[in-house]
């Protein structure tokens, strides 16, 4: 019995060391807590390839222009204005005079030119450079004085404002490391935060790996509100690093974080608990990316020794593809996989891309009878009960894959497989781990049908590698030496034309036409787009989320009590 008493005493002792410290009051300290899913890979803006790093330093650095997420148009950033001249081949930026780096040095045109030099350096592989090449040539930039940057293009290039949206580096801090060839290992995540010299609204104060990143307000930030008071209004920010989404959900409920992006199944429970938790659950908008079934039409995979695999004929037959498009039960996917919180996707460009989305496309609509009729008419008839064959009588069988670990995609593939089964088409479904899938898509080309998603961008030319027949992400038949079909040639042509006109509203028609062509030719079938939600504390003011980011995040503050 004595031993038992000791054990009880030990447990009691362990429990006794609970700390009763006052609840961390986010409102009193004006510090916003939110969560991110993984550790950043780097604090160096040029070397970023992952979204966590972009979040980690997003508020510390700025670019010449910024996008208004409500209008999707460009607004002044570090450049207070800009103008095109010389037949749209010259772009002149006038920089702000009142911007200081956090070490007190002024921001000048030298910083812009230095950043461009780093991005174009072949020894520094980065994700910015491809958007800054015009027909394979770099953009020439010069600085007639400290506060003017002149960009010269070999031809009019409409995406230039988007291309110039890179975060500016402090030349006086990083030039030394760059000249010494040490840039690729500069400003890694082991850098003490006070050595990260930024000019954004917030400056990093502390990074605890796998725990959190903390920031304080930049008291020298250039932006002011309408009354001329300094911005940002928050005194600090903390990003907690929480890899598991269930844990994020619980931590939001327990008050550890102030903002949470719920999954579809969490929206309703949060709305029910909104009063008790004192939170607002708001609709943000429609997903900006696209999620689609792509079909392999790559002759390198299907044609061997002059003999083409039958699947090549099916997937390049527009009647076959139209029948399949009518067999995608989008409403079923919305109800089952997204709890009703999604909309059917018609175009590859999200409706949230207000200028470039083509609103005139008509959805194919789920109709298995119509699908069967189209197949019958095109010669794909039932060869025995439950099995449909192609015009040569070969049974219709193909493989379907997607990446593992995303339950929604599993369910969508199951729905698609079941509906095709009703049409007499056999689908063998096997998900693959992401990297294996990528290798199949861009190296071995050994796949038939894949459910895959791309993230969306406002600038339509950013999808160039996907839309152009020569592109590496032209999933269904990548890196073609010359366009395989007339419609692919036409898309290439429209992509060229679209970059020649600077006015976004005049540009839009080229991209609308591309969306129409893809919708008619169906190299891929669009599925659905999630409607995203956000939940945040009622004490937060001026919190305006949009799918393209927060609208005026500098105005956010906690209501004084």
């Amino acid at each position, binding site marked *: 019995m004595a031993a038992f008493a000791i054990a009880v005493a030990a*447990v009691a002792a362990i*429990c006794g*060391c*609970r700390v009763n410290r006052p609840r961390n009051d986010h409102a009193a300290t004006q510090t916003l807590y939110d969560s991110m899913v993984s550790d950043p890979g780097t604090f160096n803006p040029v070397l970023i390839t992952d979204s966590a790093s972009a979040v980690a330093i997003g508020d510390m650095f700025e670019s010449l222009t910024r996008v208004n997420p409500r209008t999707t148009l460009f607004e002044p950033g570090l450049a207070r204005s800009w103008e095109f001249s010389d037949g749209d081949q010259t772009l002149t930026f006038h920089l702000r005079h009142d911007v200081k780096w956090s070490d007190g040095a002024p921001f000048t045109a030298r910083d812009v030119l230095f950043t461009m030099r780093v991005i174009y350096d072949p020894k520094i592989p980065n994700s910015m450079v*491809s958007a800054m090449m015009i027909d394979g040539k770099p953009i020439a930039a010069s600085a007639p004085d400290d506060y003017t940057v002149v960009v010269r293009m070999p031809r009019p290039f409409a995406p230039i404002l988007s291309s110039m949206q890179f975060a500016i580096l402090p030349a006086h801090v990083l030039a030394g490391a760059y000249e010494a060839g040490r840039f690729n290992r500069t400003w890694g995540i*082991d850098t003490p935060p006070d050595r990260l010299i930024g000019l954004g609204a917030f400056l990093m104060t502390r990074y605890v790996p796998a725990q959190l990143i903390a920031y304080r307000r930049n008291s020298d930030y250039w932006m002011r509100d309408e009354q001329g008071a300094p911005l940002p209004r928050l005194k600090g920010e903390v990003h907690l690093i929480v*890899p598991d989404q269930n844990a994020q959900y619980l931590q939001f409920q327990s008050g550890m974080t102030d903002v949470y992006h719920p999954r579809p199944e969490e929206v309703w429970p949060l709305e029910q608990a909104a009063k008790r938790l004192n939170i607002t659950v708001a609709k943000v908008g429609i997903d900006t990316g696209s999620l689609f079934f792509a079909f392999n039409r790559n002759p390198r995979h299907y044609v061997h020794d002059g003999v083409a695999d039958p699947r090549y004929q099916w997937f390049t037959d527009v009647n076959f593809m139209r029948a399949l498009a009518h067999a995608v039960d989008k409403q079923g996917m919305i109800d089952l996989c997204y709890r009703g919180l999604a909309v059917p996707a018609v175009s590859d460009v999200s409706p949230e891309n207000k200028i470039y989305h083509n609103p005139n496309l008509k959805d194919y609509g789920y109709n298995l009878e119509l699908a069967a009729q189209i197949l019958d008419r095109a010669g794909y008839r039932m060869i025995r009960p439950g099995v449909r064959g192609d015009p040569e009588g070969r049974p219709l069988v193909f493989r379907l894959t997607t990446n593992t670990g995303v339950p929604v995609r599993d369910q969508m593939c199951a729905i698609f497989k079941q509906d095709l089964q009703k049409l007499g088409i056999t689908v063998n479904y096997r998900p693959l781990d992401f*990297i294996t899938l990528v290798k199949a898509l861009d190296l071995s080309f050994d796949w038939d049908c894949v459910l895959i998603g791309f993230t969306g961008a406002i600038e339509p030319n950013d999808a160039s590698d996907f839309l152009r027949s020569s592109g590496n992400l032209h999933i269904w038949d990548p890196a073609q030496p010359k366009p395989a079909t007339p419609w692919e040639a036409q898309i290439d042509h429209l992509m060229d034309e679209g970059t020649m006109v600077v006015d976004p509203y005049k540009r839009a028609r080229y991209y609308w036409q591309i969306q129409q062509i893809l919708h008619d030719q169906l190299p891929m079938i669009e599925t659905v787009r999630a409607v995203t939600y956000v939940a945040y504390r009622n004490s937060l003011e001026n919190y305006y989320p949009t799918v393209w980011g927060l609208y005026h995040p500098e105005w956010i503050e906690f209501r004084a009590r």
Partner: protein
Amino acid sequence: MLRFLARRILIMIPLTIGITFISFAAMSLIPGNFVANLALDPRISPQVLKQMEAEFGLDQPLMLRYARWLWGIAHLRLGVSLAYRVDVIHLIGPRVLNTVLLALSSMALTWLLAIPIGVIVAVRQNSILDRTLSFLSFLGMSVPAFFLAFLAIDFALWSGWFPVGQTMSPDYAALDLWSRIADRADHLILPALVLGLAGVASLMRLMRSQILEIKNADYVRTARAKGLPESIVLYKHVLRNALNPFVTMAGYGLADLLGGAALVESVMNLQGLGLLLLNAVMKRDVPLVMGSVLMGTVLLLVGNLLADMALAAVDPRVNFTTLEAQ
């Protein structure tokens, strides 16, 4: 004893090389490398991917890459992570601390609970207390730790008595030393309980059967016949001998706990080695994977060595000569 130590440490070297080579080869045999993570990013051109491959040396043959890695280890360098571009030790260090802290505290908790309970139920064999605790122990053994972790985290949220996940509070840096220790302990209680509970159940069963077996041994009967009080018989003769298998188990148990900790770490969001290793494998971040594997291997080997040495200290029948003969 020194000879024994030297021999054991020497054996560790080829063992470590073998384990790491197999892991290294396995990492290279699965399709795709780190750069493939970026292949579907429209902003990154194939030329940039090629440049990155060359920069990280991923285009070189397996043996050369392994030899380079080994050369680094010989110079106490774990290499540079591909995903984070910093020394691997910088990533692993704080997480090893979290994982070892969790494993050790749950082990301590397990033993503190299992041994006394095991003794009690053995002494009162077939009483209601014995039956009840046996039933609870089977229940404990059959509930997986990750499920318990979900329950625990829900309990923390519902009761508000414990923090919901994490290994420390956001204001940790501002605390003084004692508050820091208290803060750490506060965050450790639930995960250590969750991880230890299944262990309590099985260890308690083991303890019970050990004592029941030894209770009837000849030397115990002798001790009783000498007229020793029952408490001395129990604590000095029975308990000490019953503990021997536990000492051996401790070495392996540590390795088990490190493995089991990965699931609990993931559910309760404790930043440990498990989750880091899983993500590194998914991303094909070879130096990071190898660093974690090396760390795990060393922990396991050292744990076993310590267990053997402890056994020699505890069990008079075992000494370093017999251990060497094994």
